[in-house]
């Protein structure tokens, strides 16, 4: 709770800074502030408590994920320092929106009441619509914004309908009560339908097939930093929320529901990976990659009792790799019109460090050992096999193989092609973010227990 309040306070502070003409200080102060919030969050980790009539329930799960969100936000804010340098008058707005977005995200994982959940998801979504469309002179950005907005609102409608049906069945929005009731009596069929609809809405948010169509278009059109945010923070928030939703409401996962999850997971992985193979635009490629990762993350829903740690680990690994990759993309495509692979030609020669970081990030996403991505997949597979879905794991494995194809396309472009332009300038912040993100990723790979055991009961 304190975390949430502090974050909101920080967002307001950002707006105040604009008023007092302290623009230069916004980014550093926000980062410092977020670090402080991170500390606050950590202090709440071992003090689970419910606040304000169960509106906010702080648990290990929520504080751990909040911590991850805060870290990701720190990276994204730091990257914004460079990204928005040409729009000084808007920087406070951008930063503030991101901080509020973080607030929405934290609310989403620590909700104790479906109202909080819904408001959280709307804060997040609306902030994302704005960020996606934020490059107002670019038609691509506008298009991305509109597409995301239309489809997102549609999905919100579905979620709302779902919540409504849950309410209709239970007569309350409080998850604890819902959980208790769901266990006891015979329920009207509204409840499972409501759960299904909410889940579908969340599937949209994490871009799972067949609700994924928005993702590539929006990722491509949105400004690169927003894409970074969507592919890392937003996706992670959505899957964490979905996981929490399903576990906390104690929705009895019926066999049919498991089948649905399995099919969607398989479809997401397969479609995402196959579609990514022929992409030229790196952001678009990562969008499809994100879709396939969504498929992987959904696998955690099959073993709801003990997969929280796994999910945290997977999302951390994925998001950190994503941050590292996007830092490099931001650097490379800063002055280019698009984010095509051609821009990466010869990066291995012109900037070996960033090339190495991008390589590492892609390897992590591909699930090559020592990077956290490998352990994430491994633990996930272990759990899924334990849950008895070996066919799903085999599909996942085949997909991992396909995914190598496009990740390596980018790596090959960096190392085997001749550079077509000279790159100058060493933006320290981008370097720092990229290095820290990838180091964290590798550290997670070396000591997976640090995160995996965090949520062990």
């Amino acid at each position, binding site marked *: 709770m304190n975390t949430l309040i502090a974050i909101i306070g920080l967002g307001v502070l950002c707006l105040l800074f604009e008023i007092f003409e302290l623009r230069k200080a916004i980014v550093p102060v926000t980062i410092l502030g977020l670090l402080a919030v991170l500390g606050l969050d950590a202090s709440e980790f071992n003090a689970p408590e419910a606040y304000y009539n169960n509106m906010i329930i702080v648990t290990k799960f929520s504080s751990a994920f909040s911590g991850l969100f805060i870290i990701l936000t720190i990276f994204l804010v730091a990257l914004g320092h460079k990204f928005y340098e040409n729009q000084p008058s808007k920087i406070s707005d951008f930063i503030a929106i991101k901080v509020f977005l973080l607030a929405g995200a934290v609310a989403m994982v620590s909700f104790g009441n479906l109202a909080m959940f819904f408001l959280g998801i709307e804060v997040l979504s609306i902030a994302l619509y704005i960020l996606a469309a934020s490059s107002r002179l670019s038609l691509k950005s506008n298009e991305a914004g509109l597409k995301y907005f239309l489809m997102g609102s549609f999905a919100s409608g579905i979620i709302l309908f779902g919540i409504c049906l849950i309410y209709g069945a239970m007569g309350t929005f409080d998850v604890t009560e819902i959980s208790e009731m769901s266990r006891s009596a015979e329920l009207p069929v509204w409840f499972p339908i409501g759960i299904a609809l909410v889940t579908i809405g969340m599937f949209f948010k994490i871009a799972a097939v067949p609700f994924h169509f928005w993702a590539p278009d929006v990722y491509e059109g949105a400004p690169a930093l927003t894409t970074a945010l969507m592919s890392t923070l937003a996706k992670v928030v959505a899957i964490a929320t979905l996981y929490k939703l399903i576990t906390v409401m104690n929705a009895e996962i019926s066999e049919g529901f498991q089948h649905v999850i399995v099919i969607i997971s398989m479809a997401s992985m397969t479609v995402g990976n196959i579609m990514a193979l022929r992409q030229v635009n790196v952001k678009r490629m990562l969008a499809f990659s994100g879709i396939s990762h969504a498929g992987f993350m959904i696998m955690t829903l099959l073993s709801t009792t003990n997969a929280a740690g796994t999910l945290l680990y997977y999302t951390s690994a994925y998001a950190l790799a994503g941050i590292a990759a996007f830092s490099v993309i931001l650097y490379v495509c800063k002055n280019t019109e698009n984010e095509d692979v051609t821009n990466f030609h010869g990066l291995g020669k012109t900037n070996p460090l960033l090339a190495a970081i991008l390589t590492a990030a892609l390897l992590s996403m591909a699930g090559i050992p020592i990077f956290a991505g490998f352990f994430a997949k491994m633990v996930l597979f272990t759990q899924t096999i334990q849950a008895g879905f070996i066919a799903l794991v085999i599909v996942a494995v085949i997909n991992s193989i396909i995914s190598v194809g496009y990740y*390596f396309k980018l790596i090959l472009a960096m190392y*085997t092609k001749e550079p077509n332009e000279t790159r100058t300038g060493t933006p320290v912040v981008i370097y720092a973010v990229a290095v820290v993100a990838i180091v964290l990723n590798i550290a997670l790979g070396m000591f997976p227990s640090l995160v995996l055991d965090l949520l062990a009961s």
Partner: protein
Amino acid sequence: MNVSLILIILLVGAFATYIAGDKLASKVALFFGIAALGCSVVLLNHFNLGENISFLSQWINQPHVSFSLNADGLSMAMVLLTAALTPIIIFTSFGTEHKNAKAFYALILFMSFAMVGTFLAADGLLYYIFWELSLIPIYFIALIWGNGDAEERKKAVVKFFIYTLAGSLFMLVAFIYLYQKAGSFLIEDLYKLNLSATEQLWIFLAFFLAYAIKIPIIPFHTWQANVYQKAPAVGTMLLSGIMLKMGLYSVIRWQLPIAPLAAKEYMNIFIALGIAGVIYGSIVALRQKDLKKLLAYSSLAHVGLIAAGTYTLTIDGLRGAVLQMIAHGFVVVGLFFVSEIIYRRYATGTIAEMGGIRTQSPKFASMFMILVLASVALPTTFNFVGEFTVLYSLSQINVWFAILGGTTIILGAYYMLKMYQQVMLGETNTKAFADVSLNEGLALVLIIALLFFFGLYPKPITDLITPSLENIIKVINRA
């Protein structure tokens, strides 16, 4: 003192090499390579004295993974092979200029690190990690420092990477399944499992896919020739000299003891596949126009025989396979170095452009000849010891296996001598061919000396590996 030391040396070496810069890189790498070799010899000494040099520490709690390195005779032998070949391979590269040398040598040491790890790991997941880890450096080595047309090379290398990765991922699934059953990735726990026949079959096949691609056993070999041709000499040596042996080692260490019922049940099929590889590889090698490709197919034939030996599940088969693995490691490194020496002078790998070299470079010709002979397993070379033992074990299963597998000594002689004739003999070549330099000669002599020494006196290695192989046989026969 325990075996993790050698891993640390190699890893530190890789970083040190990178830091040392392009000029010093090769020397620093060689230093660390030799240091690792020294370390492994010292460790061997400790091992022989009966000290415990294994290493075990908890790593991941949930799922239960430990950082467990176990040094038994088999592992030590493979580690020694790696540790001995690494400095030799680094040394052979001294005659070739490599741009961005620091990265190049660092990758070599890193690869060595990963391979040593694979040989030592006693925890399934740790083993898998090292196994995968070794793929990355060779990928970059082949990709960046390789020769030939860049597009072709890219195609070959990516195919190789994806193909091998594909195989090993199924192994990962198998490991996870085993974990699920045993509650641990530790090899001793996996050895204790009593799986049903069906389970064993699937596990066996999953492992087989990984190993068949890595080794390679036909028909999973299609990546091999192209990658060998395109990779730089060092890469080819690492691949053929050590990396193939990872697959064979793993068959002995993991596949057979974990799924013995399946291994016994389908033994004949897998032996037959190995032997088919012998014949097929030899026949395909006959018409190769590229020296490195020819050597690749010869390698296919040899490892086919080794694989057949491992699948006999007899102590002779395993022992012969291990001996032959080590012998083949040295010979193939020597032969690829020979092709590199020719490449340095003629800048070609095409056999048709060679010929008549012997008159210009008698020393080189002799050493090449010896390597050719070793490769065709002439008695007194190390390869004979291995090949004899393997063929003997095959004859114990079925004489026809021995006869068909034995065709390697005929066909092998045919294509190797044909190649030697086309490359070295005939009218003096119009292009000048400088005889081997001191460095080149030294490396070759070293390899040759080792081959002869162990060819005449394989006892140290046999004694080293036999107890652990007997243990493995015991595990295989536990049910």
